[in-house]
């Protein structure tokens, strides 16, 4: 490796010190891909797909965290879908109820989802992409984030598995072999 002299070191150190300051001037998002605004809309959306009732829903399960994480992972081919689709959801919401989706009461959010699902949603974005396809995508990913393995960033603390009463980790040593009756079980 090239030897670092003092001057070079000071230059590098200065650059390193400035870099985060520059990054900080942008709006801070705790997410990997989503902006704060997008995450707010998506959270409201997922929250209706798996709502909270006596058991935790998509919000408590961290489904947005799952989607955000996968959007920089295996699902990165859907980045554009989310970036534009979430704008579209707000456009539809504005057209129908004059407010952003996340600010609507539950019944009005459901009304927006109903038109999205039918693919009849109003909004500039939906002129060039299918509202139904986007809605289906979000439904799919929400189910994955809610019912899937917690290792991927959703299903926090295994909330959906607790709801269904399936223990994790599984109980080992349950073979229950009855070798006294060869050929015929139990």
């Amino acid at each position: 490796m090239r030897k670092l002299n003092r001057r070079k070191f000071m230059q590098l150190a200065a650059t390193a010190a400035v870099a985060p300051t520059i990054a900080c001037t942008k709006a801070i998002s705790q997410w990997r891909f989503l902006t704060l605004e997008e995450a707010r809309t998506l959270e409201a959306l997922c929250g209706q797909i798996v709502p909270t009732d006596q058991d935790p829903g998509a919000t408590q399960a961290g489904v947005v965290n799952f989607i955000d994480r996968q959007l920089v992972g295996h699902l990165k081919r859907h980045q554009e879908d989310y970036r534009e689709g979430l704008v579209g959801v707000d456009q539809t919401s504005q057209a129908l109820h004059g407010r952003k989706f996340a600010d609507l009461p539950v019944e009005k959010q459901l009304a927006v989802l109903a038109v999205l699902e039918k693919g009849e949603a109003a909004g500039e974005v939906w002129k060039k992409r299918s509202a139904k396809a986007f809605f289906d995508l979000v439904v799919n990913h929400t189910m994955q984030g809610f019912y899937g393995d917690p290792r991927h960033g959703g299903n926090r603390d295994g909330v959906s598995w607790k709801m269904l009463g399936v223990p994790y980790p599984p109980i080992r040593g349950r073979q229950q072999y009855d070798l006294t009756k060869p050929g015929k079980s139990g």
Partner: protein
Amino acid sequence: MALKKVNAVVIGAGAGGGIVAKELAVAGLSVVLLERGKWYTPFDCRKDDLRNQRVPALGSAFGPDDDRYVRVFVDAKGEEHLVRPSDGDYHNNAACVGGGTFSYGALAWRYMEKDFRMRSTYGAVEGSTLEDWPISYNDLEPYYEKAEWEIGVSGDDSNNPFKGPRKKPLPMPPLPAARENQILRDTAELLGLHPFDAPTARNTVPYNGRGACMRCRWCVGFACEVDAKCGTHNTVIPKALNSGNCELRTECVAKEILTDAKGRVTGVAYFDSNDRLQEQPADLVVVSGSATESPRLLLNSKSALFPNGLGNRYDWVGRNLQGHAYAGAYGLFDFDVYDDLGPGATLAICDYNHGNPGLIGGGALANEFVRLPYNFSQLRVPGVPRWGAAHKEFVRKWFKRNIAVHGPVQEIPVFDSRVQVDPKVKDYWGIPVSRLSGLNHPKTLETAKYVALKAETWLKECGAVQTWLKMPGRGLSGSQHQAGTCRMGDDPKTSVVNRNCQVHDVPNLFVVDGSVHVTNGGFNPALTIMAIAYYASDHMVRTWKGTQFRG
């Protein structure tokens, strides 16, 4: 530069190739076994319900990868789609040492006698290339037995009156019944059906130096954490390597089969794990890449003598792609049927495999593997929305109260359901990719409907409070059960390989995998692929000891 010549190159370390490699190596031939995937172990079992062979929502766990592999899929409307391995339309079978057998559900069926004589049994069918096999159940029987004992199969089919005669029982007893197994068994007996413990390549007692199934929920599509599932990766391939005559080269992608001016095969060109093009000369080449990849390799191996690809003089390579038309039913119960005892798919009936009035073929019915929460959330239930409060309520209420019964209904082969090589699209290595197109035969769907209704009747008799059917679509099926694309036959004009799996006009080239199946039975095909591999290996070894394929 060419590598040192060996006696045989086997392409693909799956159900077929693993066995051929072992049989040849043990008989004293020097063998190179090429596998495009990796060699996973039980330690790679991640029990990941979003990333496995059955649910590739976040990728195919056991290959191939989405970055380097692609196919063209032509849908029912004739539209082309570029598909990746984690897309359903790719019709993926795992690419790793062991192939599909590394992560399969391990059902290990013998086909029935009639499954080899479909044309004689049902006559000619319009729009179908339905034909008899050139070999019979009796020809394969000793090899079925060899597969059952060497790979390891558990179960008890002594109560199955429809099976072909067997000389030896299965080597391992079945698992004790889980709750849904018991409910289905008792009810089937009431209905006058013939339930029995399905044969599965799974240790239920210690066998072959490995332990028994611990009955977890993650079976089909997953690697086995305790190595109780038996595939070629933990049985014959280690034996092949132990013989000292076999070298396994992983992450090697075959490009083409090389031929000389006399029309004989001289070896294989492949890309090694560092993407370098290599040439492996051999006296004998065995293609065992699966029914969607083997024809691709043959079609990509063009030369002056074989302008349309190897074995393709009469345009039969890639034809008759078939899988299974899965049909069955779901039932909801007003009591818990779930007891968290895996793996499921342990109770079966063969009452509807043949003899269904006015129909062609049929399929075995068995209970489904354990439905994991995400899989259950994906069921489309009539009258239940697929999202929102009502959906959540449905999942919560019925997760432990459902039974699914389904089975692989035999498909009537269609000439135009096929694998071609796409004229434009190439993969990461620049090799033209598989192009899949075609539809299911309407007769297949009639049979599927019949079998599905029988499954529903069974569940209703079990006490289901609500039932609904699971029906296959008109679309092509291939995937895990893919078969038929290099048909075995006596007539070189209507088949690709002869009864010994030898390509008709190339004496030192063999195809040994599901591709050679004339029809695919009403069963999971793995054990039949294995039996054929033993059968074909026998022929290869005998010929080798005589002429060494130089004649």
